[in-house]
């Protein structure tokens, strides 16, 4: 369904997407990456707003840029807020459906149905400027689904939504994936997790990992966390860490700093604390590294750039993961 072959997008000297090769079949897919990773550029290539500088992008077997056959089958909900002021959600969504080539009556019917579906039926005739960000977000989603596309592409769809609205939207989008395809870009793993989607992790415009949620969790688990501490005798604590069998690697940071890579930060912290008490070592600070997705992103960025591997080994990527970070 979505196929990118060595797709590269350059903005002058700035790289948006870098030599990306991936094939996504029908179903739900999540695109994960921190801000600035190239997600929106990648979606721009997929939705036919941008042309690859090099390589090839095909959607439903055809190039999407300027191709009405492909565009008619795509619904896109961009991340940028909708700043249209005077129009109402009904007018806006009707307008978008008419742009897709439907006559006025069909467009009004489709818009009304889509607005009901996203829970905006009662606010459908209020000017957009009077709506909350969450309601405008729903309006954007209604605009994306109203013409009944085969592929729904959502860029950061949950930003600005309260938990209830987020839950409603997740339910709606999950319902969508039962019959059609979905691609959601987000920087939050749990948002994608809730959609039961396959995952692709993008960093610096490159695909660094792909798989299902379990595989990404396995990647999180296999990545060592970093325990950082400051103590009056860091070398002694380094010895203790090495002999405990819990350290995967370590490095000294200044005269008092020590960073230890470990797969079991809680056990290591307990061992170090016990040793410090037993030997009278003063620990000024001790903090475990972040193992959340942001932490994984940070780690992957470091590996991607070829730095930061001194405190531990590279992640042993589970089977099925692209793990291009090592490149």
């Amino acid at each position: 369904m979505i196929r990118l072959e060595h797709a590269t997008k350059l903005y002058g000297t700035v790289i948006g997407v870098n030599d990306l090769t991936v094939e996504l079949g029908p179903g739900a897919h999540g695109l994960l990456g921190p801000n600035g990773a190239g997600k929106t550029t990648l979606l721009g290539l997929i939705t036919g707003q941008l042309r690859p500088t090099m390589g090839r992008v095909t959607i439903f077997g055809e190039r999407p840029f300027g191709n009405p056959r492909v565009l008619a089958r795509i619904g896109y909900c961009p991340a940028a807020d909708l700043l249209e002021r005077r129009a109402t959600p009904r007018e806006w969504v009707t307008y978008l459906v008419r742009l897709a080539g439907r006559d006025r009556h069909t467009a009004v019917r489709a818009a009304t149905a889509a607005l009901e579906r996203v829970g905006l039926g009662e606010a459908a005739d209020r000017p957009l400027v009077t709506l909350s960000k969450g309601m405008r977000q729903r309006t954007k989603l209604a605009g994306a689904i109203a013409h009944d596309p085969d592929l729904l592409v959502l860029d950061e769809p949950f930003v600005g939504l309260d938990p209830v609205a987020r839950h409603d939207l997740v339910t709606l989008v999950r319902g969508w994936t039962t019959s059609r395809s979905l691609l959601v870009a987000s920087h939050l793993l749990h948002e994608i997790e809730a959609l039961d989607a396959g995952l692709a992790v993008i960093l610096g415009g490159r695909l660094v990992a792909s798989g299902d949620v379990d595989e990404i969790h396995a990647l999180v688990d296999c990545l060592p966390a970093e325990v950082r501490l400051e103590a009056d005798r860091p070398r002694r604590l380094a010895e203790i860490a090495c002999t405990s069998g819990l350290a995967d690697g370590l490095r000294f940071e200044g005269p008092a700093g020590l960073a230890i890579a470990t797969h079991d930060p809680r056990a290591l912290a307990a061992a170090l604390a016990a040793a410090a008490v037993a030997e009278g070592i003063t620990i000024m600070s001790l903090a475990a590294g972040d193992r959340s997705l942001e932490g994984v992103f940070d780690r992957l960025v470091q590996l991607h750039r070829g730095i930061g591997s001194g405190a531990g080994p590279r992640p042993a990527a589970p089977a099925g993961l692209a793990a291009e970070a090592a490149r």
Partner: protein
Amino acid sequence: MNAGRGILAVAGFPLRRLLAPQRVILAALGAAFPAGVMLAVRRIAGDLDRDFAVVLLYALVPEALCMLGLLVTMCPAVADELERGTWQHVSVRPGGRRSLLLGTFLAAVTWTAAVALFALALALLAAGLPGSGRLAAVFAALIVVSCVGRAALFSLPAVIVPKRALVASVAAAFVVEYLAGFLPAVVNQLTVSLRLRSLLVRWMGWERALPAELQLLIDTQPTWVHIMAVVALASVMLFAAGVILARRQFPPAEEA
């Protein structure tokens, strides 16, 4: 058929924006300006000479007012969409870019022509000229020709340099319409201003009375030639703008 629906859908949106109270007040002030000038001239000079009044009316309505109206309505065709965060919604629709261009063109021509026709009615009342009915018909036709030709001209800067479209359009108007348009050479055949002047002279029956040096500034071809020339010019410019817009890419950072 589908393209027509998209164009009409787009045309409705800018027209609704233009009907905002502030915009309507500004348009009304603009429309009152030619009438104000006519009244001021009448107050100073007494009864107006008919030919002088016609030339003044021509300079104020089909030239100045139409130009200003089109600058305001046609130039932001793409820039407005980028600023409002609506470009991505429109550009991912099949034929969305073309509909945006032609729909905005339609809205710009409709709005500007409506304001100019209102201004013409006020100005003719203020001038108090005999035979105002015929003058109204002549100027209404000139207004439509001016709006179609100039809106197409301004569509090019609107798609080539969306964020500098206003400045670029003023420059294009000056260079194309008022520099090339007044050159007694083949190049002025490619301007709307030559067609407008020539139509005015023809419809007012001034061909023979015009001094020889001013004859160089008009073209004595039949009316249909001028109309077809403007239609052809507008079609070529809109086609070029459509091709450019279809190929335009806006990086995410340029939007919103």
